[in-house]
C-alpha cells in the first residue's frame, strides 16, 4: 500500500486541522474588526508578470509549470504581497486607503528538512495608499491584537528601518556587490567582519562605531533615542521614523511588545522602510513578518505606498495545539428498525444549532458509545423500544443519564 506524501509537504491530523481552522477564524475576525476586506487570489500566476518584481530568492525557489495551451511559464503563488500589488495595479478604480486581508497557501522550494517545507499557509493584511508612519503602526497593532485574541502573550516584535542600511550604502558610496557583502555581515551578525569592513573607509569615529555596533543595537527605545545626535543627516530620518512609530504604539498601549533591532536586515528585497518580525519567545519561532514596500506596486503600474504583514499559520498551530477542542454535541444510535425517528431528532437538533452525527454502522451499542465519546461528542442519544414504545436515552460525557419520550425531545 502506498500512502506516502512528498517530503516537502505536511499532512495535518484532524486535531491540527481543527486548530488551524480555529486560529484562522479568530485572526480573520480580528482583521474584520479593523475594517479589512477579504480578497481571494488565484493559486497560479504568470511567471513573466512577477519576474521583475518578486524577491530574487522567492523567484528562484518558485514552483513552475508550463501552460499546455499558451506555452507560458506559470508559478504557484510563492508570496501574497506581490500578488496583491499586481491586483492593486490592475484596479481601474483606486480609492485609498485600501485595507485587504488574505489567507491561503504559499509554495516555495527548499531543501525539505524540519520546518523547511514546500507548502506553508499564511494569513495577513496589506494597507495600501498611506505613506505615513500611522499605517506602519496600524499593521503592527493589527498583528498584536490578533495574537492577543488567540490568547498568546509570550511574543516579541522586533522592529527595524531598512532605510538605515540604504543610508549607509549611500554614505559609504557602496556598489551593489560590496553592499551585498556588507549586508551578509549584517545578516549573520559578523561583528569581526564589520570591524574589518569599516577600517577600509575614512569615516567619523561615531559613524564607524555605529556601523560596528549595529548587530548589538537591540533593545528598548533608549537604545535609539541617544543615537540621533551622533549620526549624519541620511541616518537621522530613519531613526526619527522609529521613534515616531514607538510613540504611536505607546499611545495605543501596545509598545510593551516592541524591541528595536537595528541589525535585522529585511527578509525580502521589496521592503523599503519599517520592517518587523514577530517571535514566539518560548517556542523560538518567527511566527510573523511584515514591512513597508513603497516601490513594489509602481513596478506593475502606478505609484502607491503600502505596508503589511503575514502570520505563518503552521507555526501558530504548533504553538496552540491542544488549546482548542472540537466539541460536537450529539451522536445518535438508533437500535430500532425504523430509522425515521433518528432522522427527525437529528434534524430538530441541527435546526437549533447543535452538531449531530448518526451511527450508521451495525455494532454493539456500548462500542458505539465508546467511539462517540472518543471522537469528541458531548452526548450520546440512544433510541430503543421498550414495551412497544420508543424511548430515548441521553448519556452525557460526564456520566449523566436522562430518559425522555420521543415527543419531549422533538418538542
Amino acid at each position, binding site marked *: 500500500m502506498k500512502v506516502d506524501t512528498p517530503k516537502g509537504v505536511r499532512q495535518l491530523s484532524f486535531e491540527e486541522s481543527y486548530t488551524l481552522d480555529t486560529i484562522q477564524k479568530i485572526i480573520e475576525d480580528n482583521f474584520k474588526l479593523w475594517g479589512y476586506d477579504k480578497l481571494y487570489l488565484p493559486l497560479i500566476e504568470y511567471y513573466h508578470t512577477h519576474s521583475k518584481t518578486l524577491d530574487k530568492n522567492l523567484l528562484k525557489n518558485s514552483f513552475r509549470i508550463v501552460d499546455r495551451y499558451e506555452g507560458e511559464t506559470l508559478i504557484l503563488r510563492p508570496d501574497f504581497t506581490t500578488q496583491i500589488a499586481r491586483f492593486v495595479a490592475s484596479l481601474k478604480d483606486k480609492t485609498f486607503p485600501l485595507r485587504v486581508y488574505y489567507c491561503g497557501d504559499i509554495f516555495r522550494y527548499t531543501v525539505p528538512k524540519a520546518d523547511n517545507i514546500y507548502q506553508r499557509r499564511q494569513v495577513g493584511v496589506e494597507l495600501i495608499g498611506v505613506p505615513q508612519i500611522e499605517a506602519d503602526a496600524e499593521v503592527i497593532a493589527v498583528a498584536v491584537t490578533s495574537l492577543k485574541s488567540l490568547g498568546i502573550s509570550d511574543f516579541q516584535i522586533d522592529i527595524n528601518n531598512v532605510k538605515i542600511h540604504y543610508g549607509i550604502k549611500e554614505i559609504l558610496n557602496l556598489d551593489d556587490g560590496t553592499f551585498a557583502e556588507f549586508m551578509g555581515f549584517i545578516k549573520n551578525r559578523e561583528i569581526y567582519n564589520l570591524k574589518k569592513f569599516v577600517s577600509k573607509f575614512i569615516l567619523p569615529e561615531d559613524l564607524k562605531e555605529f556601523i560596528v555596533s549595529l548587530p*548589538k543595537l537591540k533593545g528598548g527605545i533608549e537604545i535609539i533615542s541617544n543615537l540621533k545626535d551622533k549620526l549624519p543627516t541620511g541616518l537621522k530620518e530613519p531613526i526619527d521614523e522609529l521613534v515616531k512609530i514607538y510613540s504611536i504604539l505607546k499611545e495605543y498601549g501596545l509598545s510593551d511588545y516592541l524591541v528595536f533591532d537595528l541589525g535585522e536586515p529585511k527578509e525580502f528585497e521589496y521592503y523599503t522602510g519599517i520592517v518587523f518580525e514577530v*517571535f514566539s519567545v518560548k517556542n523560538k519561532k518567527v511566527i510573523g513578518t511584515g514591512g513597508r514596500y513603497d516601490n513594489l506596486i509602481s513596478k506593475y503600474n502606478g505609484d502607491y505606498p503600502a505596508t503589511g504583514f503575514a502570520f505563518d499559520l503552521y507555526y501558530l498551530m504548533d504553538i496552540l495545539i491542544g488549546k482548542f477542542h472540537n466539541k460536537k454535541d450529539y451522536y445518535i444510535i438508533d437500535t430500532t428498525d425504523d430509522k425515521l425517528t433518528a432522522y427527525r431528532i437529528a434534524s430538530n437538533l441541527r435546526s437549533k444549532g447543535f452538531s449531530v452525527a448518526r451511527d450508521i454502522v451495525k455494532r454493539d451499542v456500548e462500542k458505539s458509545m465508546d467511539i462517540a465519546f472518543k471522537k469528541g461528542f458531548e452526548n450520546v442519544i440512544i433510541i430503543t423500544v421498550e414495551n412497544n414504545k420508543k424511548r430515548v436515552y441521553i448519556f452525557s460525557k460526564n456520566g449523566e443519564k436522562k430518559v425522555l419520550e420521543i415527543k419531549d425531545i422533538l418538542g
Partner: protein
Amino acid sequence: MEKISFALPKGRLFGQTIDILRNAGILKETVSQDTRKLIIESENFRFFVVRSKDVPVYVESGIADFGVAGDDVLDEGNYDVYRPVDLGIGYCRIVVAGKPESRELYENLSNSVKVATKYPKIAGNFFSKKGIKPIVYELYGSVELAPLVGLAPFIVDIVETGTTLKENGLVVIDTIKESTAKLIVNRVSYKTKSQDIFLLINTVESFLGGL
C-alpha cells in the same frame, strides 16, 4: 535564571572553548569531556557534546543558545544562525589538493573538473564561480585515497598541518579559504535573551581583544 545552553564539538575545540570561557571569567569550574556524558551541567551552563557538523543543527533549532563551529561546517550547510565572534581557534585551511603532477592540469582547467570531497557544497561553489563545471564525488572519509586510485584528480578538504597529505604523496594546489571557529548564536535566543547573550559575547570579545 534560565540556563544558557551550549552545543560544543567533541575533540580539541571542546577544550579550547572551555579554556576561553574560563580565562574570560565566564566559567569558574573546569569542564572536561573525559566521560561518555552527552550533557554536562556546570554553573549556569548546560553543554551538549555533539559532532562538529551537528553543532549548527542544535543552534539553528534553538535547542542550544550558543555553539562553536568552523567556517568549513558553516559554509557547507545553509544555517540561519548568527556568528558574532571569531574565536580564532580551530585554525585550518580549506584547500584543493592532488598529486604534484596534477598542478599543470589544475592550471589549465577549462570545462569541467572531477573532485572528491566531504564538502560538496564548498567544492561545488568554488569551481562554479571559476566557470568550471564541478563533478563532485561526495565521500565521508579518507578523501586522500581518491587521487591515488583515480576516482578524481583533486580533492577539497581541510588541512591543519598537512601531514596526512604528505604521507600520501599529495600537495596543496590551491587555497579556497582559511577557516577558524566562530561563536554562533540562535537567532531567537539572541533576540529574546539579549541580556545574557550580549554579556557573554561582550566578555568573550573583550577577552580575545586583549590577548
